Structure formats: structure tokens, C-alpha cells
């Protein structure tokens, strides 16, 4: 699963910036960006932050050419690069005819690294710009890097959720491989759902103190599309690996039921103070059992209804026979 969530690039790339002559044209570029109508950040601030970032990282790496920092700056094609792997903190230099052509990373990869580094400061600072700033510091970047992100820490939370979902996906995929190879038994559906939800919720444990804050931020109207998207794709993943093959309305009912189970269990976990969260897991087990019982009840009701209808039809035919209405003349 992609770690990007839709619509979450911090700012759109500057396509024309590449063609501008290097050196001292920061103003021109900024004007160009403003005219392109950047929405999500004050573009000036973002550009300056980015520039500061790069200069700091450049100093850190002791760049030989002065103009290279400008060239760095010239080509930040956020998200449009084909390369997907982060290149590491120290890109290699391969001088080609005097021009710098190093393995730069895209804006997105850089943000990914900063946010990942920021996660370890969350228990202390919460989901805030301070944590992001601390994370940037550990990467050797300037504190101003936190200016790339929104001040309420939404991106950090969304990044964390996205990472957790990817981890869960990998876990489920590994399990599925083991089952396919015959090395493990296929779990019954209620156990599978219970284990999957438990595994996903356990990833919250290191951050459990600050998680209520994260939940409230995720519920902000601005973040709802992204967080809903992440939630639905996670639930869809779990059902896919559970073996769901429905192609009718059950597709929706099953996902709705599991979403309900997940959300309620998450809320219970926030308030759980039992050792090892055993109350939460018991709650989870009960909810999953409820859901299974509900579905078997529904099928029973349906078959009972059919049987009743059959009985009534039989009674009607009997009465007609007795009354002599069924005779052929």
C-alpha cells in the first residue's frame, strides 16, 4: 500500500523553476509559485524553509560547489520522480562535466524521512510541530524544516496511520503466504479478524498516551477525507486477506461491521488501564463474536421465513383440496 495519501502533497512542484538561470533568482521563483496559486502552504514560507533546509544539509555534507545548492533548489520535483527508494542522507556525487548530478531525493521522500524520525519524539512532545522539529534535527536538518508541515501535526498522524496500515498489510500478506505454502493453518474467520484488529491496535501502544489527541485531529473536517480513506483501505485489506469474495451488497455490510468493531475497540483501548490491555482484547473478542452471531441469526431468520411461507402455501393447498376447489372438471 502506498504511503502517500491523496491530496497531501505539501505544495505543488515548481515546473518552471528548472529553467530559470541559477543564482539569486529566489524572488522570481517565489513570484512564479504564487502566481500558480499554491493552496496548502504560504508558498514563500515553504520555499524559504526548503531553501534553509537544503543549505543546512548542504553545509552538513560540505558541498564543494557553491552553485550546487542552487541547482539542488532548481529541481525539486515533488512526487513526479520515478525513483521510489529514499537515497539515504548522504547522496553520492558523480560529477559530469562540471554539473552536479547527485542522487537527490524528492520532496516527498524527504518529508517521509522527517516524519518517520519525528515519531520517536511523539510520546514526549505529542503530535505537534515540536516533534517534527526534533525529528528534523536528528536527520541533521534545520529546525525550520517543520515549517514544511502544518502546525497541528496532521501530516505526522496521517503518516503514522499510513505506515501502520502498510505494516499490517505486510503482516497479513506474510501470513497468507505461510498458509498457501501449507506451513500454517488457515484461521477461522472470527479468529482472523480478531487477530488482525488486535495486531493493528497494538501498533498504537507506544503512542497510546497521545493517541486521543491524534484521533481528535483526524476528525477535523480538513483531515476527514484522508483519514477516512486510510481507514477504509485498511478494513478492505483485512477483509481481502480474510478471504472475502462478496460481489453484492454484503461487500458493504461486512466492511461496515468491521469498521464499527475497529472504531469501538480503539475507543475502548484509549480508556483501558488493565495490564496488557486485556480488557480491550476481551471486548474485541466479544464484538467479533456478536457480529458472527448476528449474521448467523440473520440467515436463520431468513430460512425460518422461507419455511413459514412454504407451510402457509401447503396449508392453502390443503384447504383448497378439502373444499373441492382443486378438482379438474
Amino acid at each position: 500500500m502506498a504511503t502517500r495519501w491523496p491530496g497531501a502533497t505539501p505544495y505543488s512542484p515548481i515546473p518552471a523553476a528548472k529553467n530559470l538561470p541559477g543564482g539569486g533568482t529566489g524572488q522570481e521563483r517565489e513570484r512564479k509559485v504564487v502566481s500558480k496559486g499554491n493552496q496548502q502552504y504560504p508558498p514563500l514560507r515553504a520555499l524559504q524553509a526548503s531553501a534553509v533546509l537544503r543549505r543546512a544539509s548542504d553545509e552538513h555534507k560540505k558541498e564543494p560547489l557553491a552553485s550546487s545548492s542552487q541547482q539542488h533548489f532548481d529541481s525539486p520535483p515533488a512526487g513526479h520522480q520515478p525513483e521510489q527508494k529514499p537515497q539515504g542522507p548522504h547522496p553520492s556525487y558523480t560529477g559530469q562535466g562540471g554539473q552536479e548530478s547527485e542522487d537527490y531525493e524528492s520532496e516527498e521522500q524527504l518529508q517521509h524521512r522527517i516524519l518517520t524520525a519525528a515519531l520517536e519524539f511523539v510520546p514526549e512532545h505529542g503530535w505537534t510541530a515540536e516533534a517534527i522539529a526534533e525529528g528534523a534535527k536528528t536527520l541533521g536538518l534545520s529546525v525550520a524544516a517543520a515549517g514544511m508541515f502544518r502546525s497541528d501535526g496532521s501530516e505526522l498522524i496521517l503518516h503514522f496511520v499510513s505506515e501502520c496500515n502498510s505494516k499490517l498489510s505486510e503482516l497479513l500478506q506474510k501470513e497468507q503466504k505461510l498458509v498457501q505454502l501449507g506451513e500454517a493453518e488457515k484461521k477461522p474467520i472470527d479468529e482472523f479478524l480478531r487477530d488482525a484488529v488486535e495486531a493493528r491496535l497494538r501498533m498504537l501502544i507506544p503512542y497510546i498516551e497521545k493517541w486521543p489527541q491524534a484521533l481528535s485531529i483526524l476528525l477535523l473536517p480538513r483531515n476527514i477525507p484522508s483519514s477516512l480513506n486510510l481507514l477504509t483501505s485498511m478494513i478492505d485489506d483485512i477483509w481481502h486477506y480474510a478471504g472475502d469474495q462478496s460481489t453484492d451488497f454484503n461487500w458493504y455490510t461486512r466492511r461496515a461491521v468491521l469498521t464499527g468493531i475497529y472504531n469501538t475497540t480503539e475507543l475502548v483501548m484509549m480508556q483501558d488501564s488493565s495490564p496488557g490491555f486485556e480488557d480491550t482484547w476481551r471486548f474485541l473478542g466479544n464484538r467479533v463474536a456478536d457480529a458472527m452471531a448476528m449474521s448467523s441469526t440473520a440467515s436463520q431468520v431468513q430460512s425460518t421465513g422461507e419455511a413459514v411461507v412454504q407451510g402457509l402455501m401447503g396449508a392453502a393447498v390443503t384447504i383448497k383440496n378439502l373444499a373441492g376447489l382443486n378438482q379438474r372438471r
Partner: protein
Amino acid sequence: MAAAAGPAVRCSLWQRRSLRCGPGTGSAPLPARPSGRPAPRAGACPSRHRCLSAGPRPVPGGGAPLRLCSTQAVPQAGINKPVIDRIIRVDHAGEFGANRIYAGQMAVLGRSSVGPVIQQMWNQEKDHLKKFNELMVAYRVRPTVLLPFWNVAGFVLGAGSALLGKKGAMACTVAVEESISEHYNNQIRTLIEEDPEKYKELLQVIKQFRDEEQEHHDIGLEHDAEATPAYSVLKTAIQLGCKAAIFLSERI
């Protein structure tokens, strides 16, 4: 614990359907559970094979039993997911609707002289629907929310057109099949523009189905569809409805 009795009770109750099983769970003997979990509870289905024949496990939300192993999933990387999503979703909805239309027509005209003709066309539509069900699972596409609505609307359309007589039913068939053929042609064009090699299998399926829908269209014409009173009005109205259905199913 009540849950322990649960599986045993469920296994015996639901004798109706047997689970299909794909590759991988058939012949391998059950290994010991690796993670140290307790052995299957006494009274629970001790062997997977016996459970398979005993019946489906209940599933949250009800519905068809879960297949115990994953089907051959299409690798998700590299395909244009939004486009393929839409194509499969709307085609699935279309075949589902066509099924219901023929069901409605059979309900009224099943015992008439065109009954066998309609039945044969209906069987082909059932095959189409089955194929799209498989594709939907393989590409992990969600079905349209409007399925229950198309369920009813299709049946009503089929029954309603059949009540206008055999020619009316044929006119409805002609209108719907023409709409569907055009729609499939559009999709074929889209896929060819995208990447004919990558979507070869899907293209083949859609081409074959388009040809069969065209056949149905011709069968309808053969059976005097055009002799229906108010034929053009009926045809336009039905085709308008089909266009709206296609538009909605692609998106919702």
C-alpha cells in the same frame, strides 16, 4: 464456553452449501498449529475437509460463505486502478441488471413461445455475470452501492416490457443490448488507448461479451421487436435509462 459449542452447532446446521476450495488447501495434511495456540476445541470441526462439506461458516454481515483460500489475484502494481475499477464495476452492474431484466421477462413470458429464446439469452447473461464476479474479486474492485436498486429496477423493466407482449419484451432486449454493445465498444477503445498488452485478458473478455450482446440484439430484431407499438419511444426511454444507470454505476 458457548463459543466452543458454536462451531459444532454451526457445522451441523448449515448443510446446504459446500465451500468451494481453491488450490492449496486440498490435499495437504493439516500441520500442527505453529503458534502454540490451543488445539481445536472438542466438538469443533476437527478436520477442514469435513467442515467443508458440512456447510459454510457464518460471516459477519451475512451473505455467501468465505472462500478459505485466496483466489488468483491480479497484481495491483502497474495497472491504472481508477480506470479498471470503473470498467469492472459498471460492467458487473450491467450484467447484474441484464440478468434481472431477463428474469422479469421470463416471469411473464416464460411459458409462451419466446420462452426458450429468452431463457437461452438469460443463460448467457448468467455466464457473463459469473465472469465479472471473478474479475471483480481478482482486481479487488468494489461493487456499486446501487446493486439492490438495479435488482428491483431490472426486474420491473423486464416484467413491464413483457407485459406489453412478446414484441415489447424483444423491443426492450434490443434497446438494452444496443446500449450495452455501444458501452462495451467505448470501453474497448479506452483500454486499447491505455495499453492493449497489459489489459489483454480483460480486452478479450469484453470483446467476447460485446459480440454476444450484439447477437442478443439481432435475435431481438428477428423476433419482430420493431413491430412494437411506440417502438421508438420505448427504445429511447430505455436507452436513456441505461445511460443514466451506466453513469451512476461508474461513480457510485
